[in-house]
């Protein structure tokens, strides 16, 4: 303890260098932890898809719709138990993208059968089934906007075929919950409404964005997918059918290999910061060589000098790591509320700083600290 002031004085005296070193480390740890958390959440989300559900869409792109006539043909294929249209509506609340939340047009009864994770009281279910303008909203969304059953609100889509000159009017028929243990991936910030409403309001121009199928056995997924796509192989509009997991993966892959991209950017930035930090430290090393030599001359044992340098460097690492983790925690907490990005990351139930990521961050910070200590190479410095 009697050597603590010596260590702290060094950190305080060159406060600008200490601050810049800590900030550089914090940015590194922030990037590593945030990106790793997002990548983990993406991977976790991908594995949550229900193996009994397939998704059929336009072969070329999600941008194009399938003809409505496909629904019955697909439903007739052996092994398909139920189907529901799920169309991304792209509705903006209050006409502003910053209030955006996921909203989809679905076929209510089939939808609730295929998605058991969407849990509604029976009376709300029945109200929704019989209300053309009715919708259900997730608990989090309802709480965010203080919506109650019976409330009205409007959405206006940014997708051209769904823009009909006036906003769509909706009535909250139900507020859904889920069993977070059994269905951890369920988004409680989404809104679902009746596809019929969309179909009629657009003058019957709305097609099928995606068709979600419930199949009899996950083992038959490959066979059924092939059968569906083969059915439309020679038609003008070909289909692509895949498991819900694969669909989620391909949806995310629209932005390229997300994990590779995120990690690539993160590591490149982190590496650059490390180089800058190394340069700063090499200057500091030169300054401190004489001082370390003096301590040894005065009789400070090499081990003690080494320990002082190590503790100082580890303290820097720890401060940088802690700050980086706080920043990462804040960013991850704020991410779901960021327009667009928030809509994507809300799909990932695993989003959050896990103990594993925290240990990664702290480990990386301490390694950086050790590296700083190594930079000083105090064991090589002889008495002056």
């Amino acid at each position: 303890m009697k050597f603590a002031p010596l260590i702290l004085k060094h950190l305080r005296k060159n406060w600008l260098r200490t601050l810049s070193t800590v900030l550089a480390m914090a940015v590194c740890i922030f990037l590593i932890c945030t990106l790793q958390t997002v990548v983990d959440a993406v991977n976790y989300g991908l594995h949550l898809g229900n193996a009994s559900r397939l998704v059929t869409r336009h072969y070329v792109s999600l941008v194009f719709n399938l003809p409505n006539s496909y629904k019955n043909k697909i439903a007739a294929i052996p092994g398909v138990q139920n189907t529901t249209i799920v169309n991304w509506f792209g509705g903006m609340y209050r006409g502003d993208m910053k209030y955006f939340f996921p909203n989809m047009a679905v076929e209510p009864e089939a939808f609730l059968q295929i998605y058991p994770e969407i849990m509604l009281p029976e009376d709300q279910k029945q109200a929704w089934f019989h209300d053309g303008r009715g919708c259900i909203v997730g608990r989090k969304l309802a709480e965010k906007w203080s919506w109650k059953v019976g409330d009205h609100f409007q959405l206006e889509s940014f997708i051209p075929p769904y823009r009909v000159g006036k906003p769509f009017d909706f009535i909250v028929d139900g507020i859904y919950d889920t069993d977070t243990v059994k269905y951890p991936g369920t988004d409680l910030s989404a809104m679902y409404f009746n596809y019929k409403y969309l179909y009629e309001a657009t003058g019957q121009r709305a097609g099928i964005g995606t068709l979600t199928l419930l199949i009899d056995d996950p083992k038959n997924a490959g066979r059924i997918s092939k059968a569906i796509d083969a059915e439309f192989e020679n038609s003008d509009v070909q289909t692509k059918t895949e498991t819900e997991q694969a669909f989620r993966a391909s949806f995310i892959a629209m932005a390229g290999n997300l994990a590779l991209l995120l990690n690539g950017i993160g590591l490149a930035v982190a590496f650059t910061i490390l180089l800058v930090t190394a340069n700063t430290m090499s200057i500091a090393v030169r300054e401190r060589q004489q001082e370390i030599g003096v301590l040894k001359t005065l009789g400070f044992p090499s081990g003690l000098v080494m320990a002082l340098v190590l503790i100082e460097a580890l303290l820097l690492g720890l401060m940088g790591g802690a700050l980086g983790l706080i920043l990462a925690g804040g960013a991850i907490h704020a991410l779901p509320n960021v327009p667009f990005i928030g809509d994507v990351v809300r799909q990932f139930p695993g989003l959050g700083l896990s103990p594993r990521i925290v240990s990664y961050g702290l480990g990386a910070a301490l390694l950086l600290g050790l590296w700083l200590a190594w930079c000083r190479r105090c064991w090589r410095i002889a008495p002056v």
Partner: protein
Amino acid sequence: MSATEVANKTTAVSVQNVRKFYQRDTMQIKVLDGLNLEVPQGEFLALMGPSGSGKTTLLNLIAGIDRATSGRVLVAGTELGTLSEGQLAKWRSRNVGFIFQFYNLIPVLNALENVELPLLLSPLSKRERRERAMTALRIVGLADRSKHYPGQLSGGQEQRVAIARAVVTDPTVLVADEPTGDLDHQSAEEILDLMQTFNKEFGKTIVMVTHDPRAAARAHVQRHLDKGVLTN
């Protein structure tokens, strides 16, 4: 008394047939060549000689910073060649006070903390350390500058702080390497006065390396080194 504590008690420093070589690639550079030197307790010795004559090397051997290639160096009864690196460090902290040409104060510590630094290795309490450091500063006339950092002191004041740091542990030997080399005439005189005071009033044995004849004149004995050999 241990086997290494064999020297005569009245002899502070005894250098016996010491050779020191440095290896540079395949070439062996001879720095000290069979050197013998006796420094009685309480003596103020000035080592003089041209650059490269081996003065600082000899001082480093006496201070336990470096080791002789052969021969024996005994300081305060301890043969330094028999001590391990760790033992040598501990020995230095108790027996040697260092005064450097460029003061070598720790810039992040104030004057009092710099003087207290060697005492951190002792079992003294914080209060005792502070009291001793303050006493040392008072002796060198800088009690009123105890909270000043090295950057806020003049060269002469820095050297006085360095002297306080050197004497605060009450060492057997004070070694000084060009203590006035970086000072103006007035400051140099003050520093030499101070060293004389420690020698006369506190009985400290001082071994000083210097190029300055006026500094050397303050010592009891002047020895000249040339090419690793004492010439007088």
